[in-house]
């Protein structure tokens, strides 16, 4: 293992930012060198300090002042892109978790290799992170003509940015699914559940395809294999059902948070953050190899 960890900065100290700190601190490859919020007074920044991180109040300005960083995670609510500043002034790589989800849309087990030469990596939404590993594998198996995804998150696990940007959530998630499965017709539905106790993050998928010649065992095996790969970095990811027949394949997954910093129902946040940190580690290791 390299003795030197990569210096990383986090923009944003909300629920996502704080959980990112925890995941980065557990990583053998990353060093959380700065958490930049918008003002000094946020509870999030105080929490970050308690966790032993240096903090700064001026967002992207603070990051630019304290550069260089090997990687920057954008977990802010910014709709105006921080990427423009970072691209001009630094040679850092940005891992983007903002609601607009710009950058190359990535799901680790599906297209991480495409991120290798990319300096602006966008995480596909949590719904896409949960659905795409299975959809990608099942689409390769069945050449579907239509894909539908219904994601249900616990009320408490959806932050204000997600709530304000549900239209974008649906649009970016369906676009990413369409691109990565090469199925043109995709529909995404999203629910926020008021149930108490809060239920785990749940994503149900349906693919319309020619199912003649597909056995249930084959579909289950394919789905289980995809789920197993995700569990390597997000242990709370579980396949709960699969069906096949009559021109239709269905699968559903539930995701609970395995992180110490998140309530159990916030599997959506745990999954997208785990994906972001995994991509960061892969990037760092690649970079270390290149410069050795």
């Amino acid at each position: 293992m390299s003795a030197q960890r990569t210096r990383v900065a986090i923009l944003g100290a909300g629920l996502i930012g704080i959980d990112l700190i925890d995941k980065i601190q557990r990583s053998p490859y990353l060093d959380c060198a700065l958490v930049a919020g918008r003002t000094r007074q946020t509870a999030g920044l105080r929490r970050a300090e308690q966790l032993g991180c240096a903090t700064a109040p001026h967002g992207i300005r603070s990051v630019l002042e304290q550069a260089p960083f090997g990687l920057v995670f954008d977990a802010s609510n910014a709709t105006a892109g921080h990427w423009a500043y970072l691209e001009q002034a630094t040679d850092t790589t940005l891992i983007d978790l903002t609601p607009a989800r710009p950058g190359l849309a990535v799901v680790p087990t599906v297209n991480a290799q495409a991120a290798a030469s990319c300096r602006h990596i966008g995480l596909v939404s949590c719904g896409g992170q949960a659905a795409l590993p299975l959809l990608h594998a099942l689409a390769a198996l069945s050449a579907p003509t239509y894909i539908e995804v219904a994601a249900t998150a616990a009320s408490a696990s959806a932050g204000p940015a997600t709530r304000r940007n549900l239209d974008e959530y649906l649009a970016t998630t369906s676009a990413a699914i369409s691109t990565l499965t090469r199925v043109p017709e995709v529909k995404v539905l999203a629910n926020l559940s008021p149930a108490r106790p809060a239920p785990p993050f749940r994503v149900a998928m349906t693919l319309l395809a020619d199912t003649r010649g597909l056995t249930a065992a084959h579909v289950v095996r394919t789905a289980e294999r995809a789920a197993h790969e995700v569990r390597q970095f997000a242990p709370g990811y579980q396949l709960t059902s699969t069906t096949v027949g009559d021109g239709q394949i269905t699968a559903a997954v539930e995701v609970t948070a395995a992180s110490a910093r998140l309530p159990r129902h916030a599997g959506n946040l745990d999954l997208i953050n785990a994906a972001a940190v995994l991509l960061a580690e892969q990037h760092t290791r690649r970079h270390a190899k290149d410069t050795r």
Partner: protein
Amino acid sequence: MTKTRTRQIILHDPTLRDGQHAVRHQLDAAQLTAYATAADAAGVPVIEVGHGNGLGASSLQIGRARLDDRTMLTTVRAALTHSRLGVFMAPGWGTSTDLRTAVSLGADVVRIAAHCTEADITERHLGVVRELGAEAHGVLLMTHMASPDELAHQCARMVDFGAQAVGLLDSAGHYLPSDVQTRITALTQAVDVPVLFHGHNNLGLAVANSLAAVDAGATIIDATARGFGAGAGNTQLEVLAAVLERTGHPTGIDFRRLLEAADIAETHLMDTPPTIDSVSLVSGLAGVFSGFKKPVLAAARATGVDPVDLFFELGARQAVAGQEDLITEAAQHLHRTRQHTPKERTAPHA
């Protein structure tokens, strides 16, 4: 707010939207035209049309509609001379694009819906409706799952976002009149815009609950011809109109013509008018979305479990509208557990 008994009540008619649940969203253009023409002639103030779950909701998950949103709106718009055209949209199922299309096709009254504790997802879309110049209503779904104070707080937020009327859908048909009284009273104290109520008849109380809502200060009440709607059906429009007449609340509707419209609904839209069958009664008792009835019966048949057991299971899981994917999974779960505890009950054939 004045609570005199002569207060005018606006009857809002979602026969051609909520009724879609009873026919798996399969109404055709001739059916829409027949009912919309008759309801318009009766002077029904607002006629709402769409997929059962509103704009953008046609899907494998919730059920695919026979007609697309655009065709439904164009068809009903053409049939209306005086009545205003209503639509319904829940963020997460539909989007701002759907709203823009609907208003451009002539929607006058737009309902933006969210589950009972999720009003903040309506901020963007209520703003879009206001910007488009249509009348914006903010409505909460599955409202039996939240307290009166919480509902009042959520409705006040929707008013802040631009809603010109706010209110509650008893999506599961779970309320008693006293529940409605408490909740509508809390709303009227919290907001200064008209308050609305939308009942379902699973416990046989839709008309009584609507009257309780009026007594507590609601001025917009949803009701459908013959109660055509999800599960045990909605508040029956022609009955409510008669009851409001007797209690001294003018509705501005031509009662004889409303009876004709209700007859047309019965002959043109449905095989049989909704009844409170055993499954619908259990659905209301368990607090499950009324629109789940058809998919629950289908899943029960497919797995051989009792739909009554399935509704109680879904109630225990607190499934909400839009979570139809839980139905099959819950049925399979019951099927598996039933292997260990055999029970001599068979699913009815619908």
